[in-house]
């Protein structure tokens, strides 16, 4: 039986190859992109572009705004994924406990998404040109009728969310935003634990040695690491850039 993780990895190789040409392209364009947080920027028309490459592609922005837009992108991804899960045949026929857990995760991620939309819009005084637009997603690589595919993908997304928030905390300069990120990341961690617990047979998988290090610490990853991994899934269709985020 094919697991989604395998599909993700396959996609990762493909995207990584594309990534190097993207970096090269950016260098040629004269942009200083430390660590290249660029996500899914199409390079198909490399030769036609001179000077600024951004054009009408949304950039997450800098400082706290950039981090909030980054979190908003991740929450959009999670919310869209669970929306598809609840429309799928696996969920419809799942055990009562798994149905309840996945339905809760759907609600939580939609609530997180709507929070970021409202909070960012408020923070920029309604200037929607600074708010990440609604992204389009392509989940054709996930079989929503298959338990392994659904729970495997969910587990990757939740682990990614935890590592992303843990890594982003130190980049925030406003204490209130740090606390808000903290309020969300522990719920993502509760999700990750529950999904891994129902999905994997190892009784220690909820906080497994494959994720947590020998100091008992969860991963903390930079935006560029996270966006590269997310880009590699192939789930995000809408192009955007993260050129002003710290690597």
């Amino acid at each position, binding site marked *: 039986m094919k697991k989604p993780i395998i599909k993700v990895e396959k996609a990762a190789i493909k995207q990584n190859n594309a990534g190097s040409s993207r970096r090269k392209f950016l260098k040629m364009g004269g942009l200083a992109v430390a660590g290249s947080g660029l996500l899914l920027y199409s390079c198909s028309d490399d030769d036609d572009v001179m000077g600024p490459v951004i054009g009408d592609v949304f950039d997450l922005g800098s400082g706290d705004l950039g981090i909030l837009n980054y979190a908003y992108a991740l929450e959009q991804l999670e919310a869209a994924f669970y929306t598809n899960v609840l429309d799928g045949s696996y969920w419809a026929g799942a055990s009562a406990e798994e149905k309840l857990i996945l339905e*809760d995760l759907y609600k939580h991620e939609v609530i997180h998404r*709507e929070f970021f939309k409202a909070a960012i819009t408020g923070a920029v005084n309604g200037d929607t040109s600074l708010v990440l637009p609604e992204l389009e997603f392509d989940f054709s690589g996930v079989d929503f009728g298959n338990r392994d595919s659904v729970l495997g993908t969910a587990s990757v997304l939740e682990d990614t969310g935890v590592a992303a928030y843990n890594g982003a905390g*130190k980049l925030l300069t406003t204490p209130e935003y740090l606390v808000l990120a903290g309020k969300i990341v522990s719920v993502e961690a*509760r*999700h990750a634990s529950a999904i891994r617990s129902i999905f994997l047979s190892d009784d220690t998988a909820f906080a497994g040695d494959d994720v947590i290090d020998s*100091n008992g*610490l*969860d991963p903390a990853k930079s935006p560029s690491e996270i966006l590269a991994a997310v880009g590699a899934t192939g789930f995000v269709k809408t192009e955007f850039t993260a050129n002003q985020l710290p690597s």
Partner: protein
Amino acid sequence: MNIIKFLDEFTSDNLNKKMSSRREVFSTLGSLSKKAALVAVPFGLATSSSKAYAAQDMDAAVSALQLALTLEYLEAEFYMMALASGVLPSGRPESVYSQISKHENQHVAFLTAGLEGAGVEPVGKPTFDFTVGGMFDPFDDNNSGQEVAYAQLLALAQAFEDTGVRAYKGQAGNLMGTDFLTPALQIHSVEAKHASEIRRLRAMVAGETLNPDALGWITLDNRGPGMPEATQAVYDGEENVVQGGVNLVDATGFDAVAVSQSYDEPMTGETASTIAGLFIVS
């Protein structure tokens, strides 16, 4: 430092006052230490730079870590005694407690090393009483029977883990701008993973896996079925549905149950100290 004295002195009021000046000092130091590539101690806070800290500012971050260490001592000893008690069934319960026990021991070692690396003497390990003067019998020392003891082991574990999550979150602001912040966040999310699993294990044992108050996440301020009333302080305030000034029930159309589940709330150092203090004899 004496643990009781430390807990008595620990008030969030004192810690929150100096926020802006402390952040300035820490962020300056943070960039200095990056340039010097100081990586010898886990937290990257080299002792040679410690004189750059104003004493007051240093105190807030250090106090946050001392509180964290105190909570980790409590958890580490609790899980060690739980595993030694013979109360835990083999299989999933024992495996879950073993895994958590390992992490809590690692957290004690990590925080101890971090404080020592910063030139600070870590608080000593307190003497704990997990029976709270005979109110509980989680290790079946008083022959309450395995079933009763096991239920209490699960209830106490849930209370400790949910407290840990809230307590670390409450200290994040005091660590802002320091190299302690990221490791503290990395522990914080591990505590949340523990909390989720303990809650779900407890629900399974109690046959409550479909009870909305017994999921991996916290619903409103409900402590959940079978939790002793004495643990209510762990959950007070979790019913919040307004985040960053946005009422998320109004903004999303989801009910307060779902909205409150979506966010864990911080806990002040004072509250965390009070809760931990219930189990500390000296």
